[in-house]
């Protein structure tokens, strides 16, 4: 990791009125003066205000986004769109993060030490999001009306995730260490989802295929009847992914499943799909 310049953002208290701050991004901060950053426009409800009114900024500004580290020190659950469309650099939210965290981002790294609310990593194209708490609904999902959800990048959630995780996913990787809500991987057409807890109902509903799969390492209580059981085997490709999870993302639990046989289900036949659900 290159030496980064750190800006610390401190929310000035909690607000029931949401703040929309897509400007909290290394791309927006880099190359500006601290004064310019403090005056970047955010939305407080339907009102446009300078960021300094609700978020205090202090620290050093980098010339290039890839060298910019932004630390959010405090509860930011009311701040939406943190890191939206970012392409490089790093954001660390020490606490919760609001909706649309890292949505449509194409690069860089976001870590949230608490929970991330709905739509985190929505339509993400690249980069890595780590949520050390729980994630909300539509993690890595597609916005309503869009046919493409996540098309690249990686999301790792240490806790659980809500419903419709990875809806319309095309490529990329999502790892959930805990449970997921219903409709995980709904409409997915590519991409990889690893669930180390229990998945919710209607897993992979209307999934198309294109190499996409959902791997469940703690079983799956209920699968759609439109998924057909093929075989129980120990696929080589899963070793590659699990090794990757351990080596690149530090998912130590992945190691214990390297030689675990998995049941292979293929579907969703309701839409003529050839996506896979692999259940350990």
């Amino acid at each position, binding site marked *: 990791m290159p030496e980064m310049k750190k800006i610390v953002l401190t929310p000035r208290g909690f607000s029931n009125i949401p703040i929309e701050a897509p400007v909290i991004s290394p791309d927006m901060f880099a190359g500006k003066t601290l004064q310019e950053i403090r005056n970047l426009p955010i939305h407080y409800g339907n009102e446009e205000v300078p960021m300094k009114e609700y978020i205090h900024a202090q620290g050093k500004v980098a010339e290039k986004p890839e060298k910019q580290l932004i630390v959010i020190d405090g509860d930011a659950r009311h701040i939406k769109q943190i890191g939206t469309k970012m392409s490089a650099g790093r954001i660390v939210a020490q606490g919760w993060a609001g909706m649309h965290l890292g949505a449509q981002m194409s690069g860089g790294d976001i870590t949230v030490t608490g929970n991330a609310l709905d739509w985190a990593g929505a339509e993400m194209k690249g980069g890595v999001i780590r949520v050390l708490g729980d994630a909300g609904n539509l993690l890595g999902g597609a916005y309503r009306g869009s046919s493409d959800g996540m098309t*690249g990048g990686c999301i790792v959630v240490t806790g659980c995730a809500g419903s419709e995780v990875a809806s319309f996913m095309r490529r990329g990787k999502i790892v959930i260490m805990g449970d997921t809500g219903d409709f995980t991987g709904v409409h997915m057409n590519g991409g990889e989802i690893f669930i180390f807890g229990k998945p919710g109902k209607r897993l992979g509903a209307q999934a198309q295929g294109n190499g996409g799969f959902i791997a469940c390492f703690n079983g799956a209580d209920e699968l759609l009847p439109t998924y057909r059981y093929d075989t129980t085997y120990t*696929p*080589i490709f899963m*070793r*590659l992914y699990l090794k990757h999870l351990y080596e690149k993302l530090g998912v130590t639990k992945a190691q214990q499943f390297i030689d675990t046989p998995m049941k292979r289900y293929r579907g969703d036949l309701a839409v003529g799909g050839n996506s896979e659900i692999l259940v350990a």
Partner: protein
Amino acid sequence: MSFKHNGVEIEDTFAEGFGMWGSKIIITAASQKWADIAATSMTGFATSVIACDCEAGIESRVHPDDSPDGRPGTTVAIYGFSRGKLSQSMLNRLGQTVLTCPSTAVYNGVPAEEADEMLDIGKSIRFFGDGYQVKMRMGDGWQNRQRFWRIPVMEGEFLIEEKMGAKKAVAGGNFLIMGDSEANTLKASEAAIEAIHTVPGVITPFPGGLCRSGSKVGSTYAFLRASTNTPFCPAIKNSFKESKVPAGVNSVIEIVINGFDEASVMKAMGAGVDAATKVEGIKWITAVNFEGKLGKFQMSLKESLKGA
């Protein structure tokens, strides 16, 4: 002109190398035994492009900790006269010898950033899946992008990387070990091969790395384009006028080396010559060339020994 190394006379000459296209793959399997079996099958009948479709050999073994899927593996290098021929040989050989071998998977051994060209090997082999093959993606948007194909087979599933890197390479590094007896010459040759295989990135495509029947271009028979290397056959050294077999030499073995670059081949030549000259009974070392008329690379024995 000659010089001495470890007390053995070395002719001050050069090996004439040719430009070829090379590729490298890593075959992993459930055990080292099966990785070796697949690699040995794949590199069979690939000693010389005189009569084989390619030249190939086993480069090294891969420890599970260093292999892409954490299983034991074997690295195979393969060389062809053109990208097209190399690609065709790889396809045929992978399809018939590795795809068929239980538990194997195949990974690219020449990363895209080092390759001159990426060959669509896995992408072509995928058609064996008859429509049930599955594309596998890794690293999109956050790591190096990789593509694989999963092909259903009777045993389970065959995994192969979509593209294999190929680069312009050097073939035909060589030297001849001349000894007082067959036994000593073979012993020295074995020592040379052992030393050569400590150099990364080279292969010795002949059986066990050794060629006892080096050839020359042409023949007294019009229908034959290569024949025994008469100047270096001790059995006719006093019958053949232009014999180059020195007095006291009764056996000659050739070692041919291919590598991805001239420096590696030279280093391997030096390591081999150095090891061979330490064996008792070795009288002379020389190299085969065509006076620089045919090959692009001239690899001097003297230069090769500088690093030895």
